[in-house]
């Protein structure tokens, strides 16, 4: 959290990290935010939902590979880009929207439509200020199908330096 004291009109951002571990199927978490409020309705929860899967090829209507984006640095030269593919495993064309990704760390390039049975290529490229950072973030995309299927891909970066 950026700030824990807020005057009237001020905002802060609270990052909730979800570790999928070995969970499977539907998982809901409701973290509680404790404040100095005294009103009766001062209990504030936020809610996150996830559908945790074990088999990366089991998702529908799209399959994203790799199913984890690891853009770690293992030495020279600088690694600042990662390519991925999205395959449409359904029999209908699908449209995609990017719900969120860490825009302060990277730029994302990908088509927003995948023909039935087809595959598209996309990539993420780190910003100059993110190259020296380690992080664990994620990207969420949504398919414009009747159930608004969502897919969240972890994006991690570690910097490994060669031992002397």
């Amino acid at each position: 959290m950026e700030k824990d004291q807020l005057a009237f009109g001020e905002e802060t951002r609270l990052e909730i990290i979800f570790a999928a571990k070995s969970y499977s199927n539907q998982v809901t978490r409701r973290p509680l935010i404790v404040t100095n409020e005294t009103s009766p309705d001062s209990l504030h929860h936020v809610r996150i939902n996830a559908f945790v899967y074990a088999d990366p090829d089991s998702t529908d209507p799209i399959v994203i590979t790799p199913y984890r984006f690891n853009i770690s640095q293992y030495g020279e030269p600088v690694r600042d880009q990662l390519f991925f593919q999205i395959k449409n495993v359904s029999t209908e064309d699908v449209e995609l929207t990017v719900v969120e990704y860490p825009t302060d760390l990277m730029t994302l390039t990908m088509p927003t439509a995948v023909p039935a049975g087809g595959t598209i290529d996309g990539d993420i490229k780190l910003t100059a200020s993110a190259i020296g950072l380690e992080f664990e973030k994620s990207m969420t995309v949504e398919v414009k199908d009747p159930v608004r299927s969502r897919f969240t891909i972890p994006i991690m970066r570690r910097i490994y330096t060669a031992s002397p």
Partner: protein
Amino acid sequence: MIEMKKNVVQFWSLLSMICLGLVLLFSCSDDATGPDDETACKFDGPRLEIPDTAFDFGFVPQYSKISHTFTLRSIGCDTLLIDKVLPG
């Protein structure tokens, strides 16, 4: 003749007062510190507002770590202290 002059003076006096009233009315309606001002706090004490309280990640691979950022806003007249966040 005198009576007619009196009527003209009264007419102009009345017109001036109406104009003055209209000017005052419109200048008051633009007053930024009025009671309906949206920038003024409406709640006594500290008060937290969370514009979006839920997020759906959808499909997530096992053994991965993902994150979402919620926005927290203070809308009370007193300073809001966020003591802790308990995992749910």
